[in-house]
């Protein structure tokens, strides 16, 4: 099964209890991957509150996920 690296920040890092992890997944898109993770780890942030980055580039929920990708779900930002 394809394996991806997930990086967690802020609310999601707290809820997952990890900064990053390698996950084997059958998810074809970022949306499927987040739903899988949210179910498994009881992540509470809805998709509408998150942005998606794959391999250090902003993308959309329908982005295809491939073996070796680094995927980040970005919670609402509060810089400054």
């Amino acid at each position, binding site marked *: 099964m394809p394996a991806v690296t997930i990086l967690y920040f802020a609310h999601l890092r707290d809820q997952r209890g990890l900064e990053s992890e390698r996950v084997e997944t059958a998810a074809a898109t970022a949306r499927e991957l987040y739903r899988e993770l949210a179910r498994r780890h009881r992540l509470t942030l809805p998709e*509408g509150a998150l942005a998606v980055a794959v391999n250090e580039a902003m993308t959309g929920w329908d982005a295809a996920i491939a073996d070796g990708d680094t995927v980040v779900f970005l919670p609402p*930002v509060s810089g400054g």
Partner: protein
Amino acid sequence: MDAFAITDRAIDPAAWRRRLGHPRAGGLVVFEGVVRDHHQGRAVLHLDYQGYAPLAARAGDAILAAARARWPLLAALGCHRVGRLEIGEAAVWIGTAAAHRAEAFAACAWIMDEVKARLPVWKRETFADGAAAWSQGAVLRPDPGGVAPAGSTPP
């Protein structure tokens, strides 16, 4: 050169200010965002910032480039700190230089608004009552690269 930095070390405003200098500049505008000791009536002890550094630096660079495309700037620089910050420490520094002050003021304010909306950076407040929470924040705008079209209305 456009250059936006993400750093886990204390921001040195004097060093950044020196990089802004330009012989054709008639106005330099510097914004320093510092940690305050209160939020919505609650006493704050310190802040912790997290950032997705590679993406945040690139978004910052794109914001500076967009500002330079929009105003006749001689320099535009910025940085955002991550990690634990105490009251009074600088979390963000933005500087602009232009021949005349109006452009430098406008661009600096616009850059700061964009930084708040587009950088993948998160602020966690620790309160005097023992509670700690991530700042409510805003959904990250997905525009890749964060480049605003020239002439668009500032947010």
